[in-house]
């Protein structure tokens, strides 16, 4: 047997030198590569990278849209009473329609145009000059329209998150006007300050560079604080808290939360704006924080109430995801585990105790999960951001990344993060209150008591979510 193998090796041994002999002269005789050839090669490499990045970014954009519908619509829809499911779902779908149009007309320009430190300019209104070539200000390898549509999905989900605070009691028309204006007055400036060129909080060149990888401040703080303000301004649902208002379908909420978790990979890992290693880092951190968030919430309530609930598990996962959003592309995987853990415990405490103590009716806990998670995420990012993951402040002469977060020794970053958080809170409080007041005085925000009792499905849309007789 052995000798037969040796025989098989023989032609190989003989073949190698023969091949080298054959190839060597060819190499020597070929003319040196011309400039044109090198340029063509570079072009091909660029095009390949661009295709890869673009594929990931288009999928990421679709994933983020999936978070709004059906993710958020099912999550919120299951948590309300049966008579309000369509009303709740329609609030999110309205954002998918309205914000898309606004974004195309003026929103993208206000967020990502040049403008000043606070808000973008008007050079991109009607998507003027937003074409299929990259905009080197934002993402060098993908068409600017990919960047634009990806950012649109964030602009859609942010106001949709707020709907959790005023569930079951707001007029559809007023909601649509309020949230559309909110997007222009609060979301666009915040996105510009943090991510826009020349923004006040921009990581490169901003006065207070804020690390916000995927929108902890831009998305979760703005929407979570707006949720709290809205819940306080509107007042409670009729009958709250004396009357029981348990979720009508935990199954829908469960499926919705699963889709949120899934879509969040596009939200966070997509925020790398390319398909490179940074996307992997954010992907890993996203999964890790969601896992510990779910575990921490469940364990906390297990001690509190004696049972691990399904609603606790999915709420904890969402809390972990909301909190890691800001840190996703800046921290080590072990930090992500820690961030999720803190998120699960603190958000659970906020929802169980603090809400009860103050007595506001944040119906679906948009503040308790997104506002609190976003705020914690802002600060934790300042503490745990590591230059070894993302050398966002550049590298020194020896190739070592400059200190990024407090964990690297840059305690100043925690202060920057706090400034960003403070601006996010302030802008959201002022903007939300102003718009609530305007819309309330002109259109009226709440439905009538009779309509509230009948439910939004029937009173606002003339439909029922569940017609068990047909």
């Amino acid at each position: 047997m052995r000798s037969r193998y040796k025989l098989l090796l023989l032609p190989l041994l003989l073949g190698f030198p023969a091949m080298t002999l054959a190839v060597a002269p060819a190499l020597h005789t070929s003319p040196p590569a011309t400039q044109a050839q090198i340029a063509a090669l570079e072009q091909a490499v660029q095009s390949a990278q661009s295709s890869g990045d673009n594929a990931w970014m288009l999928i990421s954009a679709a994933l983020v849209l999936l978070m709004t519908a059906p993710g958020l619509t099912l999550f919120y829809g299951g948590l309300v009473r049966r008579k309000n499911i369509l009303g709740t779902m329609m609030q999110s779908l309205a954002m998918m329609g309205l914000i898309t149009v606004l974004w195309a007309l003026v929103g993208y320009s206000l967020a990502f145009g040049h403008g000043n430190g606070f808000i973008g300019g008007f050079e991109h209104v009607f998507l003027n000059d937003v074409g299929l070539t990259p905009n080197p200000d934002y993402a060098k390898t993908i068409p600017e329209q990919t960047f634009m549509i990806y950012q649109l999905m964030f602009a859609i989900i942010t106001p949709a998150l707020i709907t959790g605070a005023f569930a079951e009691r707001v007029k559809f028309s007023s909601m649509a006007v309020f949230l559309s204006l909110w997007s222009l007055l609060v979301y666009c400036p915040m996105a510009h300050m943090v991510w826009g060129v020349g923004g006040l909080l921009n990581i490169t060149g901003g006065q207070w560079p804020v690390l916000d990888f995927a929108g902890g401040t831009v998305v979760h703080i703005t929407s979570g604080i707006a949720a709290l303000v809205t819940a306080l301004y509107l007042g409670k649902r009729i009958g709250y808290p004396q009357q029981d208002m348990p979720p009508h379908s935990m199954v829908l909420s469960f499926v919705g939360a699963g889709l949120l978790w899934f879509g969040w990979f596009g939200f966070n890992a997509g925020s790398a704006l390319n398909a490179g290693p940074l996307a992997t880092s954010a992907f890993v951190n996203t999964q890790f924080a969601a896992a510990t968030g779910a575990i921490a919430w469940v364990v906390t309530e297990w001690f509190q109430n004696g049972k691990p609930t399904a609603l606790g598990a999915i709420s904890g996962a969402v809390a972990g995801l909301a909190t890691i959003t800001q840190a996703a592309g800046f921290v080590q995987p072990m930090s992500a585990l820690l961030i999720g853990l803190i998120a699960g415990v603190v958000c659970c405490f906020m929802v169980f105790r603090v809400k009860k103590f103050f007595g506001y009716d944040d119906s679906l806990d948009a503040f308790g999960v997104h506002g609190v998670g976003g705020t914690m995420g802002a600060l934790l990012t300042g503490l745990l951001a590591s230059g070894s993951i993302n050398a966002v402040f550049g590298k020194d002469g020896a190739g070592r990344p400059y200190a990024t977060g407090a964990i690297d020794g840059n305690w100043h970053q925690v202060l920057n993060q706090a400034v960003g958080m403070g601006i996010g809170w302030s802008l959201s409080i002022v903007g939300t209150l102003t718009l609530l007041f305007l819309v309330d005085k002109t259109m009226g925000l709440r439905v009538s008591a009779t309509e509230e009792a009948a439910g939004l499905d029937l009173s606002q849309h003339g439909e029922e979510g569940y017609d068990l007789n047909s």
Partner: protein
Amino acid sequence: MLKIEAIIQPAKLDTVKEALIEAGIEGMTILEARGHGRQKGHTEFYRGREYTVDLIPKIKLEMVVNDDLKDKAVQAILGAARTGHIGDGKIFISRVDEAIRIRNDERGEAAV
């Protein structure tokens, strides 16, 4: 003629139904009901809020039988629906004045 109404645990419906058919009961009506007796429901937790659910799902069976089937029917229900725990349900028996088969206007015991 007697009307037997039995309120039972939803999970026991299949075994009770089979026991009744075996006992010779030919027809019955089943209603999905909600209610409570002395056990007063249970509590549920949603995001830390405790909800008392005092009207819990039950199944109500109704059947009208001739007098001689009463004991067999009651035994069948007792045997199949009892777990020995609170919430097993109750049986009510009352007299029925008349029974009429809509299809052919048959009256009395023949219609049962």
